[in-house]
C-alpha cells in the first residue's frame, strides 16, 4: 500500500457534506473560491437526504436535498471526497492550514459506473443496510441508496467475500479490486467544520428494550419507513410485518438525561416526532398515535401551530416519561409511565414503539486539530468563541463551524448557520489574501 501523500491545494476545506457543509460549500464556490468537501460516508447529503418530510412545512426532504446535492456535485469549484476522513489539521500561518486526508477505496470507478445494479444482483452477500438503519438488507456490492450522490456502486470490502461475481457482470468493467487507500496533504486557507451530530444509541438504556424487542425502533428507523425511498413501501412493524395500529413515541430518549451523560435538550425530537405522528395519521388513518413527553418544546417559527395541528388531527399527547417497556408474547409492548396530569402510574399497550433518540456530538472530530487547540463545549460540540457576536467563529482563527457541529439544531438553523460560517470564511479569505 502506498502511503505517499499527494499534495493538493484549495481555498477552503469543509469537513462534512451534510446540509450545512453542502450549503457552505455552495456559498464559497459561488463566490469563486475552490472548495474541498470531505465526507466520510459514500454519499453526500448527510442525514437530511434520508429524511421523509421536514417540519413544520411538511415539505419533502429529498425534494429539497437532491437538487442541492446535484448542484454541489456538479459545481466546478467544488471537489468532493467521499469515504474520506480528515485525520489531522494544523495551522502553519494565517492563511495556511495543512490537513491530512485519508480517502478509502470504493473499488468502483465512479465515473464509469452507470448504476445499473447488476453487481447488486450478482453479489451473494447480504448484510444489514445501514442507510435504511437496519430495517432491510443490502448486498456487499451495492448502491448506497436510490438518491445517493454520487450514484454509483460501492464495494463493502469488510463484508465482501472477494468472489468476483460483481466484476464478471459489470458491463462497464468499473469494478476494480486493486484500488488502494489514497493519502492527501491539503493546503487550505480556511476550514469550516460541518461535522454534524450523531444519534443517541438507545442500547445505553436497557429498560427500553431496543434490539431485545423487535417492535421497538428508533425515530430514524421510522423516518425511513415513511420516507419516499422507504424500504417496505408501507408502514410495518419489523417483528412480524404487521401494520401497526397503536404506535407510541417515547420522547427524550438519551437527551435531557444525566444518567447517559447528556443533560441538554436535543431541540429536534419533539418536532420530528410530531411530524412523524402527522405523517403516520395520513399513512394509517385508523392508527392511534400517542406521544409520551416531558415537555413539548415547540419554540420555532410555525412550530406551535404545527403542534396544535397534530392535536387537532387526533394525536394523543401524554405528559409522562416512559419508565420501562416490556414485551408481550404477540410482540405488543407494555409501556409503564406516570401520567403526570393525574399523578398515577399507568400501563399502556402499543403494538409498536418509536424511541425519539436525541442528538449527540460527533465524536470523530474530537482530536482532529493538533495540540487540541479547537475548543469543545462540555458536551463535546465545537465551542463557539463568540456566541453572540459571530456564532460561527471557533477558538482557532480561520476555522469556522456550521450546523449541528456546534450543538443540536433543526434544518433551517443549520442552513442559516452554514450561511454565517461561509460568509465569515469569505471575509477571512479576503482579509488574508495578500499575506
Amino acid at each position: 500500500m502506498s502511503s505517499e501523500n499527494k499534495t493538493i491545494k484549495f481555498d477552503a476545506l469543509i469537513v462534512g457534506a451534510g446540509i450545512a457543509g453542502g450549503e457552505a460549500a455552495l456559498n464559497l464556490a459561488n463566490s469563486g473560491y475552490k472548495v474541498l468537501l470531505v465526507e466520510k460516508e459514500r454519499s453526500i447529503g448527510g442525514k437530511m437526504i434520508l429524511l421523509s418530510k421536514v417540519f413544520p412545512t411538511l415539505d419533502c426532504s429529498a425534494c429539497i436535498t437532491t437538487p442541492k446535492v446535484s448542484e454541489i456535485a456538479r459545481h466546478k469549484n467544488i471537489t468532493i471526497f467521499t469515504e474520506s476522513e480528515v485525520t489531522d489539521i494544523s495551522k502553519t500561518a494565517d492563511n495556511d492550514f495543512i490537513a491530512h486526508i485519508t480517502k478509502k477505496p470504493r473499488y468502483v470507478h465512479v465515473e464509469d459506473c452507470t448504476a445499473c445494479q447488476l453487481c447488486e444482483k450478482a453479489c451473494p452477500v447480504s448484510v444489514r443496510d445501514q442507510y435504511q438503519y437496519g430495517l432491510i438488507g443490502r448486498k456487499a456490492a451495492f448502491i448506497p441508496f436510490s438518491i445517493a450522490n454520487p450514484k454509483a456502486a460501492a464495494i463493502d470490502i469488510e463484508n465482501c467475500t472477494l468472489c468476483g461475481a460483481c466484476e464478471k457482470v459489470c458491463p462497464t468493467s468499473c469494478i476494480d479490486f486493486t484500488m488502494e487507500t489514497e493519502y492527501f496533504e491539503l493546503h487550505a486557507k480556511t476550514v469550516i467544520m460541518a461535522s454534524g451530530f450523531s444519534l443517541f444509541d438507545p442500547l445505553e438504556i436497557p429498560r427500553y428494550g431496543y434490539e431485545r424487542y423487535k417492535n421497538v425502533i428508533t425515530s430514524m428507523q421510522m423516518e425511513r419507513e415513511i420516507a419516499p425511498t422507504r424500504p417496505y413501501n408501507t408502514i410495518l412493524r419489523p417483528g412480524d410485518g404487521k401494520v401497526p395500529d397503536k404506535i407510541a413515541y417515547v420522547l427524550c430518549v438519551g437527551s435531557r438525561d444525566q444518567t447517559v451523560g447528556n443533560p441538554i435538550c436535543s431541540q429536534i425530537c419533539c418536532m420530528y416526532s410530531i411530524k412523524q405522528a402527522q405523517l403516520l395519521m395520513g399513512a394509517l388513518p385508523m392508527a392511534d398515535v400517542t406521544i409520551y413527553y416531558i415537555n413539548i418544546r415547540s419554540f420555532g417559527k410555525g412550530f406551535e401551530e404545527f403542534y396544535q395541528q397534530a392535536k387537532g388531527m387526533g394525536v394523543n399527547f401524554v405528559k409522562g416519561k416512559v419508565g420501562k417497556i416490556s414485551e408481550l408474547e404477540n410482540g405488543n409492548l407494555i409501556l409503564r409511565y406516570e401520567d403526570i396530569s393525574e399523578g398515577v402510574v399507568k400501563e399502556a399497550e402499543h403494538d409498536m414503539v418509536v424511541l425519539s433518540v436525541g442528538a449527540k456530538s460527533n465524536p470523530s472530530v474530537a482530536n482532529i486539530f493538533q495540540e487540541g487547540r479547537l475548543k469543545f463545549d462540555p458536551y463535546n460540540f465545537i465551542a463557539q468563541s463568540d456566541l453572540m457576536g459571530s456564532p460561527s467563529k471557533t477558538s482557532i482563527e480561520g476555522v469556522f463551524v456550521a450546523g449541528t457541529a456546534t450543538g443540536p439544531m433543526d434544518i433551517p438553523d443549520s442552513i442559516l448557520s452554514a450561511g454565517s460560517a461561509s460568509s465569515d470564511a469569505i471575509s477571512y479569505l479576503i482579509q488574508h489574501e495578500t499575506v
Partner: protein
Amino acid sequence: MATKINPSFTDELKKYGAVNMNACYNCGTCTAVCSLSTTDESFPREMVRFSALGLEEDLKTSLKPWECYYCGECTASCPQQANPGELMMSLRRWLTAKYDWTGLSGLLYKSLPFMILAMILVFAAVLYFASSISYDLEQMLHAGHNFEMIAIGTIFLIIFIPNLLRMWYFTIVKTKTKVGIKYYFTTLSELFVNMFTQKRLRDCDEADNFRWVEHLVLVLSYLSLLFTTVFLNWFTTENIFVVVFGYLISFIIFVVTAHFVSDRLKKNKSLNKFSQPSDWFFVIWLFLMGVTAFMVRLFIDLDMLVSNKWLYITHLTVLAQWALIIVPFGKWTHFLYRSFGIYFSKLKTLSS
C-alpha cells in the same frame, strides 16, 4: 381549598439528608420504574413534588414513604439526578420526627452535636451509677437486667404507643379515612408479617434476595437476643442451650452489622451512598451491642469478667445509649413505623 406553598421547607428536609430534590423536572421516570408503585399508590414523584412545594400537611398525612424499601432504582434512572430514593429516606426520618411527641427525634436527627451530647450524658449516667454501687459486678448485672425490662416497658408506654397513635391520627383520622373496626383486626396479619419479614422488599424488581435474607436474619437475631437477655437471663443462666443460642445470635448480629457498616463505607449501592449520622449510630451501636454482649458472656464463661469489669460497664453503656436514644428516637423506630405504615395503607385501600 387554597394550598400554601413553602419553598423553604426544602432547607428543613436537607437537614434530614435530602439531596438535590429540587432538580426534579417531573418526568415521572422514578414512579414508572418503581416496582412497588401501583395505580392506587404511586410514588415517589408525588413525594418529591410535595417536598419541593413544602406541602407539609400532605407529607405528614402520607404513608407512601413507608411503602418504599429503597432498592435505588428510581435514583439510578433519574434523568435529573434528583435522587428520589434518598428523598424518600429523608422523609422517613422527617416523619419519625413528626410522629414523636417529645420532639427529641427531630433534634437528634438534625443536630449531630446534640446527638453526641446525649450519648455522653448517658455514658456519664452509667458511670455515675456504677460508681455509686462501687462497681459491684453482681449488682451491675442485676441492674442491667432490670434496666432492660423497665426500659422496654416504659419506652413502649410513653413513647411508642403515643407516637403510633399520632401516626394513626395523622394518616387515618386526619385524612378522613373511614375504616370499619373489624378491619383493624382482620388486617393485623399484614402488620405482623411485614414487621417481622419485610415481605414487600421481595417485590422490588432488583430481586435482591440476599439483602432480604440478611435483614430478616438480623431482625430475628436481634429480637431473639432481646428475648434471651430479658426473659431467659442469658448472662446468668446455666442452661447450655440458652448460652449457646445467645452466642450464636449475638455473633450473627455483629457479623451482619459489620457487613452493613462496610457497605456504607464502600457506598456501592444508592442505598448506602448518603449515610446520615442516624444511620451510622444505628448500625454501629447494633454492632457494639452484639460484640459486647458476646464478649461479656464469653468472659463470664472464662471466669474473667470479675477482673474485667470495664467490659460490662462498656456493654451497659452501649445498651443504655441504645435503649434510651437510638431505640425511642432514632432509626430503630422504622421497625414499627414501616410495618404500621403498610398496615394503615392496607386499611386505607379497604376503606375506599
